[in-house]
């Protein structure tokens, strides 16, 4: 029952993110998806402009070969025909309940080696990493997997806040450099921004 519930949360979280990416103003976003719900990880959506991307629901399965997904992500990031090398950094978003298994369905720690390979690859190292925690029964051990993946604990997202993930893509356009004192400057206040929200 829990497994079936999780696939629904995963599908609705993905659909929400797809919608939000398509609506983002911060330049065109390419969205690609790797799934690892079957016995092998596979490319579910080839990198596509967000406005054209559609989420096709995944079907459930009991195995989670996360290590294969990390290896495939690394290969996809290195493939210039799929993802042109551009200035903006890639984002990697891991949506999972955090229970990696091998292809046989048994718990496996092969993900650790694959994550190291991903993070030491030239493109993987540039990537910013977020994780969406799926399902209510994420154990401390499973959470540790998600925590190892993210760039910082602040990027561990609850499913109910998944809509907000897209706001981080503005990072590229809102970078503020530090001054000597370590302070930062906020963009100046423009009252017409408030009127634009009406």
């Amino acid at each position: 029952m829990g497994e079936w519930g999780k696939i629904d949360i995963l599908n609705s979280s993905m659909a929400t993110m797809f919608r939000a990416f398509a609506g983002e103003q911060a330049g065109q976003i390419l969205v690609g998806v790797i799934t690892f719900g079957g016995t092998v990880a596979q490319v579910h959506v080839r990198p596509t402009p967000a406005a054209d991307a559609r989420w096709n629901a995944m079907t459930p399965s009991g195995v989670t070969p996360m290590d294969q997904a990390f290896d495939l992500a690394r290969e996809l990031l290195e493939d210039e025909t799929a993802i042109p090398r551009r200035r903006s950094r890639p984002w990697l978003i891991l949506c999972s309940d955090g229970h990696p298994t091998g292809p046989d369905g048994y718990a496996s720690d092969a993900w650790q080696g694959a994550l190291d390979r991903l993070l030491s690859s030239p493109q993987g190292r540039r990537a910013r990493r977020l994780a969406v925690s799926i399902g209510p029964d994420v154990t401390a051990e499973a959470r540790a997997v998600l925590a190892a993946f993210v760039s910082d604990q602040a990027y561990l997202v609850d499913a109910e806040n998944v809509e907000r993930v897209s706001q981080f893509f503005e990072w590229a356009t809102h970078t503020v450099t530090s001054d000597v004192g370590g302070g930062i400057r906020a963009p100046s206040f423009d009252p017409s921004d408030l009127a634009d929200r009406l």
Partner: protein
Amino acid sequence: MTALGGTPELVVRDDRGRALVLESIPLGRGGQGRVHRVRNSRLAVKLIDGVRWRPDLADDLMARLRSINRLPLDGLPLSRPVAHLVEPHVGYVMELLESVVPLGELASAPTGELSGWYLDSGGLARRLRVLTKLAWVLSTLHGRGIVYGDLSPTNVVVSARPEQDHLWLIDTDNLSFQADAARHIAGTPGYGAPELASAKASLSTLSDAFAFAVLAFKTLVGLHPFRGDQFFDEDDDDYTRLEQLNESAAAFRLPWVDHSSETSNRLSYGIPRNWVLDAALRRLCRETFEEGLRSPRNRPGMSAWYAALSRAADATHACPNCQHTFYVGNRACPWCGIPAPSVLVGRVFAQLTRPDFSADDDRYEPALVDTRDLVVVEAGGWTPILSRVGHLAARGDPFEPVANVGWDGGDRMSVHNPGPRSFHLVAQEGRNRRRLMAGERVDVLVRPGSTTWLLHLTDQLTAPHRLAVFDVHAWKH
């Protein structure tokens, strides 16, 4: 049994052997039954329609109640069943924590003057706060794989006192894991998503989101989004025509009142939509009631409503003249027309750093990401910054204040730290910086257009954290 005065009195018994006297007017009426308060108690009873005892109905309900008790519902304001009724009634007993009224009382505009009714029931700001909380409850349920099932104005109850905005979902016997939601429930007419009328579709998070969208529109505007002027201007005697219209609206066969191209069902009554729906809320309504009407997968989910409603709720302030609340950014109070007062505005950013940066990579770069959340402080008032503001993962209660910000309307801003962690208040210009320990309050100088204060909600400035940037916002009238 008849009480003195002739009011019929309904008494039911539960499996703990208690005799419960029900109030005669139901608190709410849903798809399959009605909810009555128990006289002189904090209990309420859901009676399944048809008071006649039917063993199959009773068994079915018992099985559902047992499965609901196994759902992960911790931390959510749901009135869970505490006992079940015995023969000859089918139903269950639940607890109510305080004096409540159905959300429908905030959502059904009376005929005649609306401004006073809207204000007395809490105005715009309270409606947005209540809807934010409801969106959070549903979004959290959905995040746990659970659908609510039959959302309507009668099975959400809110504090009877308008200065409070507690909320509970009653009538929780339809809760189930989405994957198990095999029972076919059409939902409450006018709220149940169009696809539920077909036997092929069952309850889903997106059917919940549809009913929520109708309820949100109705709570903010006072009227139903599919009932245009023709429902009110019709000749009262033409029952057949009105009946047909009602049926069409309940089945969503008419365009919604603000449809981008279909103009046959326009609405000019109710609270003006541009006073109470900001751009983000109007967009969510349009997406739900146009592309998302027949196609659930094109419908915004509850996390989108939660984000938009919480931003809207935080962007309101009160009119010093008429006491109504309205969105910051309006040059005048839409309710009474006086020029909008100055307010202190905090823009909330996420300050991010890259802990993974390395020497051969770019240099260390803290960056601000606009969360689009605001904190608005009125002259002479205090505004709490809630835990949910600007957050991706609010552990614990998202409605707990993490800081309180006050403004005297002149050049003094006050910040209070309710604890438990310390945080930093830094002037953008100059070297003025203060550390606020738990429980501490500081007052600093602000001037319109010249002083910007950065409130870092962290005790570690180099870790990713939220930051509210405060400026005085004064219109030149």
